């Protein structure tokens, strides 16, 4: 069953000629046919195109191309529907883009292709990446493979489901306030949010440009390292990508963690943290301590202000970024009598309610008379939050916490209460405000058999240490090997 393999397992078998890329791709496509009507991880996929890429990969393998030169040769990877893949649909989980078809390729996709990957599928998401449950998809809510009555998390819900349910070997998501880490946690896979500037965002449809970052969702930490090494690096086409060498993240996996210090923020022991989640995360931290790291309490004093600052900054940036969806250059157009009415009708009919709510909130906090009181104040609080982390990282190398305060909740449970939905992002949001890196790895299950995630946060461009700790923990446990039975 090739679809159940990790990247490193699959590439070993491809290299040994035990498997072909075509068999692997067909195995993933068959798996999608078997389970995706229950899970809704995919908005669409182009089977013919995937098979054509697989045939080319098999030809390359037959010609002697090796994985040293093309580390993803023959590996099917599915893509969140917010990243442009040339000549494939791009809808951002929204109706407003209609039958938009990408005229160009995102840099991350070009890099994956250069590494030999088979790029297939458009993965379901909260509309324009706004949400924590994938219930805001304009098409259909994605479902958690461990319990299909529950949400998979969001906004990269489809990306997490596709990997956790073995529909894809790995996937790409995007993370603006936790949108990779939280669904990875709730679905029981690995999700890595790189440091802001580590990965090019060229070809990522912007939600909040100072917070957005593309990252991988994978079946284990080694695969996350493999993916980051490929997609990371400076790009002339993204002026916020940082010209800084990409280290060998695979080598970093076996880094010594005995000299590392792990911090536990005392502010993270809060009301709303589920006792089962807490005990799993506590046990995981203890395990990391047993492996030789030193654990100590730290303080992030401005934690309680992070969500408020985030929802001002992110919505303000969103209101500007989403102004481009005006019915003129692409997507759907509604109404036609008058240009302004056409804009209003198009946006009124094309956007879903959460997107409207955020654009309106963002417009309000940027509007005359409120700009200083909300937007500038939130940016100043962002400085305080970032300083909290930079100060903490003088004392410790890694910060550990739950990824999400609870396991997956029921579909519909929070849909009428946006503020409650926002509050579930408490542990992930600060990393985006502080522009640091973070990873979520499986660390246990609730009594109801729902996955629990451990979040590790690292310094800006500290992905090597982050991966070494995650990998050491993963080597000592088997949570990451468990897979849901979808029925």
């Amino acid at each position: 069953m090739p679809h159940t393999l990790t990247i490193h397992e699959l590439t070993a078998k491809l290299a040994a000629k035990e498997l072909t890329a075509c068999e692997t791709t067909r195995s993933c496509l068959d798996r999608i046919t078997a389970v995706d009507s229950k899970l809704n991880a995919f908005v669409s996929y182009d089977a013919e195109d995937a098979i054509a890429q697989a045939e080319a990969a098999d030809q390359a393998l037959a010609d002697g191309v090796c994985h040293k030169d093309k580390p993803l040769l023959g590996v099917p990877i599915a893509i969140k529907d917010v990243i442009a893949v040339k000549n494939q649909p791009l809808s951002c989980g929204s109706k407003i883009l209609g039958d938009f078809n990408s005229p160009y390729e995102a840099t991350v996709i070009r890099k994956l292709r250069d590494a030999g990957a088979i790029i297939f599928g458009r993965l379901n998401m909260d509309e324009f990446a706004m949400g924590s449950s994938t219930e805001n998809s304009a098409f259909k809510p994605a479902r958690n493979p461990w319990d299909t009555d529950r949400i998979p998390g969001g906004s990269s819900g489809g990306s997490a489901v596709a990997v956790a349910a073995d529909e894809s070997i790995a996937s790409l998501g995007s993370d603006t306030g936790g949108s990779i880490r939280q669904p990875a946690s709730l679905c029981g896979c690995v999700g890595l949010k790189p440091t802001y500037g580590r990965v090019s965002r060229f070809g990522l449809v912007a939600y909040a440009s100072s917070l957005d970052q593309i990252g991988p969702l994978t079946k284990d930490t080694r695969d996350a390292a493999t993916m980051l090494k490929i997609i990371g690096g400076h790009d002339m086409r993204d002026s916020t990508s940082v010209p800084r060498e990409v280290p060998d993240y695979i080598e970093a996996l076996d880094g010594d963690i005995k000299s590392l210090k792990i911090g536990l923020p005392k502010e993270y022991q809060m009301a709303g943290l589920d006792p089962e989640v807490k005990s799993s995360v506590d046990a995981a931290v203890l395990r990391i301590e047993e492996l030789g790291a030193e654990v100590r309490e730290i303080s992030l004093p401005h934690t309680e202000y992070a969500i408020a600052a985030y929802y001002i900054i992110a919505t303000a940036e969103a209101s500007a970024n989403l102004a481009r969806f005006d019915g003129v250059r692409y997507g759907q157009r509604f109404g036609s009598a008058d240009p302004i009415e056409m804009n209003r009708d198009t946006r009124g009919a094309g956007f879903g309610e959460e997107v409207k709510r955020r654009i309106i909130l963002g417009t309000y906090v940027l509007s005359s008379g409120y700009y200083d009181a909300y937007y500038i104040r939130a940016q100043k609080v962002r400085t305080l939050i970032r300083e909290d982390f930079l100060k903490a990282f003088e004392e410790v190398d890694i910060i550990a916490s739950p990824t999400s305060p609870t396991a997956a909740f029921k579909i519909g449970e929070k849909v009428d209460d946006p503020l409650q939905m926002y509050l579930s992002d408490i542990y992930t949001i600060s990393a985006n405000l502080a522009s640091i890196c973070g990873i979520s790895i499986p660390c246990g299950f609730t009594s109801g058999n729902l996955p629990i995630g451990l979040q590790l946060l690292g310094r800006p461009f500290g992905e090597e240490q982050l991966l070494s700790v995650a990998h050491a923990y993963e080597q000592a446990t088997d949570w990451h090997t468990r897979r849901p039975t979808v029925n």
Partner: protein
Amino acid sequence: MEIDLQHVVNLARINLSPEEEARIRPQMQEILKYVDKLNELNIDNIEPTAHAVPLTNVMRADEVQSSLSQDDALRNAPRQADGLFVVPKIVE
């Protein structure tokens, strides 16, 4: 504080149905009440963070490079003619 929703919706150019307006209005009030907690902090002498990238004035050489073709730029347009986007009449 009562939010002037009509004014903001007008700025954002989004038509809301009466039902949407009825749902969104109290939600906005609740969210704004929540974010008011930022007023608890003393932010005197704190510099705002717009982004945290250690970069300023990223430039490239001023040389012509290839970009999207006109056909590609227009291929997703809801209406087009003669290589142009077509919009409703703006000037009478």
